[in-house]
């Protein structure tokens, strides 16, 4: 009995590892291999003005979108957990919308509203704002796709810590802001950090929505993922692989950070 269960356990492990290797590790490994096969041209493609600009834009967009979503996410989680109001179920459902909708659809819908032929496009244009095919549109698209992450991480933590600590702080004379800053935020900090990290990962890797709304203007509205795809299409594969390697390395460090935060949260 013991022997057979041990055998089946090894069998399961082997299957799980094989599956992951085939689907994730081998293809990713190949990218690393290819990128370093032609290091010289790959690096020069990556460090070309267009390549550098694409990565700069990606980081800039994440640096704007993620903090905004963090503030929104924490506020929204507090609203959902600590207050009672009509329409709470609706807000709860809407927050999950970006999980369900394809990013391409998100990009298209933003285009419908903000492009020159869209709802506010004309008005925005007349007042000197460009949203579609410009930085604001990319930021909007990224905010949209990363909307649920912080909320969904913080809500269960808020439920778990309960509101007695906050009530105690109030009876000790703390106002709303002092209670939030000194009691609530430290108590949910690992949940928030975890949410921020996955939102960042998602923001850096976003392709579909940004591809539609950005107009893919080389050196202007091209983000890292779009630049990689373009390099690949232009048969400049070494550059594409090197770009992919950089994104993959960022992803790996994010994975490590996620695991650290998860462990901190558990303690």
């Amino acid at each position, binding site marked *: 009995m013991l022997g057979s269960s041990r055998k089946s356990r090894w069998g399961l492990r082997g299957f799980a590892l094989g599956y992951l290797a085939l689907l994730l590790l081998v293809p990713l490994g190949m990218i690393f291999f290819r990128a370093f096969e032609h290091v010289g041209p790959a690096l020069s493609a990556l460090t070309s003005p267009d390549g550098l600009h694409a990565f700069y834009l990606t980081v800039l967009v994440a640096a704007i979108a993620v903090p905004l979503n963090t503030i929104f996410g924490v506020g929204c989680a507090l609203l959902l957990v600590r207050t009672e109001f009509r329409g709470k179920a609706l807000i709860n459902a809407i927050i999950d919308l970006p999980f369900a909708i394809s990013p391409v659809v998100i990009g298209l819908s933003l285009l419908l509203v903000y492009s020159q032929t869209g709802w506010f496009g004309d008005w925005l244009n007349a007042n000197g704002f460009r949203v579609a095919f410009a930085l604001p549109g990319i930021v909007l698209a990224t905010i949209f796709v990363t909307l649920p992450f912080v909320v969904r991480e913080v809500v269960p933590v808020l439920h778990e810590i309960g509101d007695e600590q906050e009530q*105690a702080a109030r*009876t000790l004379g703390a106002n709303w802001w002092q209670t939030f800053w000194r009691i609530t935020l430290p108590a949910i900090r690992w949940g928030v950090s975890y949410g921020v990290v996955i939102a960042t990962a998602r923001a850096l890797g976003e392709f579909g929505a940004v591809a539609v709304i950005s107009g893919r203007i080389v050196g202007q509205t091209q983000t890292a993922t779009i630049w990689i795809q373009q390099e690949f299409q232009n048969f400049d594969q070494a550059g594409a692989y090197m770009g992919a390697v950089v994104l993959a390395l960022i992803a790996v460090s994010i994975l490590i950070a996620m695991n650290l935060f998860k462990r901190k949260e558990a303690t």
Partner: protein
Amino acid sequence: MSIIVENASKRFGDFVAVDDVSLTVPDGSLTALLGPSGSGKSTLLRIIAGLESPDSGRIMIQGNDATAVPAQKRDVGFVFQHYAAFKHMTVHNNVAFGLKIRKRDKAEIDQRVNELLALVHLDGLAQRYPSQLSGGQRQRMALARALAVEPKVLLLDEPFGALDAQVRKELRAWLRRLHDEVHVTTIFVTHDQEEAMEVAEQIVVMNTGKVEQTGPPRELYEHPKSEFVMSFVGSVNRLGSLFVRPHDVEILQAPEPGADEAMIEHMVHLGFEVRVELVLAEGENLWAQITQAEAEQLEIEKGQIVYVRPSRARVFDRDGNASGDGRPTTLQAA
């Protein structure tokens, strides 16, 4: 004139938690709100603290109308059943919290925190985190934290409810002594009548959102105004409409006027006290509480036929209010 509650009511949906309650808690007193779960005692305490707002009625704290004053401006200390310790702060910072909010200077805060930690016997544990303390230590820390801001009123919501029996006993005695030292007007909520009797100077008995009776422990025990108070405060035998305390059941060896025949079903020896469980001829059960010496003198044992009569009994009318008081009567009269 310290805390006055006037006609306070609070509903949660269809449930009436507090039903038109009026109450006066004298300055510097130690008062217990006693009642079964769902009697509204915790809600009333939270209304006094400002953590709940009453649907109607008024709260006066030291002569000022506090009904519309938010919790953070009421100057009350509140202690929760599950401690509500700030988990990410050391014991020192937990106790210092209210003083830091009030922007006292650091030297003053340190001195006050050290004094309070000495008062609650936690000196030496200032740099620990709440997770490194026992339940009793956490609750004493919570008390020090509440006392740090020198509140006008100290409110404790089932403060010992989450602790085990031994620690609970110690902390009760300790709370009494603390109150003798600090003298802050204190209200604590409990469902444990023994705890209320042991600690409080005044007990407010609550049932289904209303105040049943208010008075010193002894008065509640000896002159309960209602059936509920008599059965909730102390043990009681119920025989028809007659209420008899177990220690008011007299056991006799021979028939006497007014005494009824009963059989001893069981005897429980609890050291000094002996519980005699009896069954009357009509099949009704009751128990008597006698001392070990009395039991020996009577030479009674299980299975024996004896004669019992109440030395004191009480009758309540249809609404459960006191109508007969302490007169000797026969059990048959019930």
